[in-house]
């Protein structure tokens, strides 16, 4: 009679086998919980934090977007808040500004860190110092960094850093944040300077994982630097590039602190009003928390839609 033995699952040394391992697979929920008590206990902390600080406010926001509170009485108003917020004259301006910022930030804030990382990767000496140098702005509190730009770099008089440089080069000076045309580009420059350190380090880590043989083979085939970047670096960092593109878009769509500090809010002729700033304006200055909630939900839907498209596209690529 042949004896069939089930191979034992390898266990970490020093840990006795579970007394339940030989029992049938169907176990009660309570037993499952007891089996993994430690794991569940550690997990519950994170779950509670998510529930209290993330999911509950989100659900509460969605509920509020269908309500109206007047004289302490809260009533259900259906889609009224949505139609009211869409009728707000600043609604489309805010979306237009936000998309403009997102596109500019993709052009500048996405491409520049990648090329800085490629450049850093090429250096033979002083890599550590250069990385610190690039990462330094990230360590500055965002408000401090933006105040530096506001009062030092973007001063519209000739005393401002950028205007002094432009003047020295005999170029026309700019009004920077006081010019509706320059508001968004100026905010993108400040935002890129503040935030690119993190992206550069991620790109660098990714670049350093590319096998050197690929570059050697490309060089033997006569590929110059641009072809090496195009045919080796970019394909090899594709996943990181795609991930950071999505994170970048999600982050830039939530543009808030830049208009608040650099443009004192709405900026010249509303040129800095972003969707997130409009939410803040409705919620905290216009006694309209329900309208703010509706706008927040619209933003959530747009970003969720974008994320879904991204996930679908990248899943197909993989």
């Amino acid at each position, binding site marked *: 009679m042949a004896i069939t033995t089930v191979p034992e699952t390898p266990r970490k040394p020093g*840990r006795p086998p579970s007394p339940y391992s030989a029992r049938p697979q169907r176990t009660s929920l309570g037993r499952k919980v007891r089996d993994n*008590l*430690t794991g569940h*206990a*550690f997990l*519950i*902390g994170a779950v*509670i934090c998510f529930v*209290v600080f993330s999911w509950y406010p989100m659900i509460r926001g969605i509920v509020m977007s269908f309500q109206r*509170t*007047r*004289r*302490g*009485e809260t009533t259900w108003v259906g889609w009224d808040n949505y139609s*009211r917020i869409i*009728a*707000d*004259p*600043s609604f489309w301006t805010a979306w237009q500004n936000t998309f403009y910022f997102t596109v500019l930030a993709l052009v500048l804030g996405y491409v520049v860190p990648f090329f800085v990382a490629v450049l850093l990767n090429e250096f033979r000496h002083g890599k550590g110092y250069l990385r610190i140098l690039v990462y330094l702005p990230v360590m500055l509190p965002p408000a401090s960094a933006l105040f530096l730009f506001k009062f030092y770099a973007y*001063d*519209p*008089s000739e*005393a401002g850093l950028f205007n002094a440089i432009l003047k020295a080069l005999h170029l026309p000076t700019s*009004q920077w*944040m*006081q*010019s*509706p045309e320059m508001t968004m580009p100026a905010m993108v420059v400040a935002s890129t300077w503040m935030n690119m350190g993190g992206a550069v380090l991620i790109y660098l880590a990714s670049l350093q994982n590319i096998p050197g043989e690929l570059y050697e083979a490309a060089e033997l085939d006569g590929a110059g630097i641009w072809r090496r970047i195009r045919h080796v670096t970019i394909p090899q960092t594709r996943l990181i590039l795609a991930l950071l593109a999505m994170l970048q878009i999600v982050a830039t769509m939530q543009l808030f602190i830049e208009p608040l500090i650099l*443009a*004192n*809010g*709405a*900026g*010249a*002729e*509303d040129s800095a009003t972003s969707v997130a700033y409009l939410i*803040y*304006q409705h*919620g*905290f*200055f*216009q*006694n*309209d*928390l329900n309208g703010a909630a509706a706008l927040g939900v619209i933003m959530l839907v747009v970003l969720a839609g974008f994320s879904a498209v991204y996930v679908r596209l990248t899943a197909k690529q993989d």
Partner: protein
Amino acid sequence: MSVPQYRKAAAVALVAGLGLSLTACSTKSDDKGSTADGKVTITVDCQPVGAQKELLKNWNDDVAEFQKQNLDITIKSVSVGEQCNNPPDFTARLAGGTVTDVFYGYMTDLQQVLDSGQAMDISQYANKDTISTWDSVDPALKEVFTDGGKLYAVPVKNYSMGLVYNKVLFQQAGLDVNNPPKTWADVRAAAKKISALGNGIAGYSEYSAGNTGGWHFTSLLYSQGGRVLTEDGKKADFNNAMGKQVLQNLKDMRYGDNSMGARQLLQWGDLLTNAGAGKVGMFIGAPDATQAIVSQFQGKFQDWAMAPLPGQDGAAKGTLGGGEGYFFKKDLTPEQVKAGLKWIAYQKLTPGKGQFDYVRAKPQNYPVGLPQPLLFANGSDAQKQELELRKANANLDTANFALFEATPVPIKGEPRNAQAIYAVLDAAMSGVLTNPNSNIDALLKTAEEKVNQLLAAES
């Protein structure tokens, strides 16, 4: 204990800790502010912050003295920042129900406070028994805090705007400090001379961001005789010759004369910082703007004087008035409301005490002699006492404010939905102050459409 046991113990401790924290967060005090021995406790906000050393000491001394006189009342002071009503913080406290029992608010906050459901009707409690000077308080100020015949707050400060000017810069520019501008044409001429001093000095400075642009547009419009909304409050009423004149005056100074400085998109603190640094010749503001310049922005009292708000061709036809008061949180016991009113009466509405303790304020870096607040009605007993005390203890040259005080301009209140409208009007103000090619007609038309949409959505 083995490693897995430690891990389990740590996990259980973590969960227990989290649970306790959440329980602590969600625990509501059922303390009704009264104890068995009949003692009443109330929390009051707007205690000065630590940086305002003298003001904080004055407040704490007042609390101690008040409690000594009223052994059955305990005041718990809460500081909510240097600016007692920073709108985002105020909104958050209202929405979260974390306002103090007696809480500070602006006159324009009444609607928001009522919508939040946090305030109680104090009509039956506010009288001569709780506030001895109540009959002397200007009825117009009580009216501002009244809705549907019910009183919701006690007024404690009011202001109206005029032309604040820097005497030192006036002298340097060869202008007569005793004959400040009376019309906007005079302001323009004076601003041109002051800005010619160079060194980054703005002859005239104006707000255009953070809703303060719309706030000042309103006052400038009132000076022309205009109004922000129609009589019934249903439509915008500033897209007319008067509104255009307001923006044209500013544009002429900004780009015609280059007399408003290069830095625009200013908010409250930005302008006053520049003023404190001696970089602003003139701006419109209330008398207490000089107090902020000195106490918060390192300016000097003796440098500043005030004139009535200029008009277009003569005296101004109106000026913007506003102020502040204390609301009472819903569900307070009658004893707590009475205790709160007693405290406000002591600290805010009694000549010689609290904010009117001029003997105490005289040696401090705090102005005595400013022409406002004008809380008490003309000719009332409280007003006479307050004026006498003010005169006897003035620590600044009252002549600097004599012209403003002697030439009253009709005061108009703020429009309904003031903050939302101010946010819209900011764009018109920033337009003429940042764009030399701005089209005033287009700016006003856009603002008018936006305000009308706002009003329609609200109704």
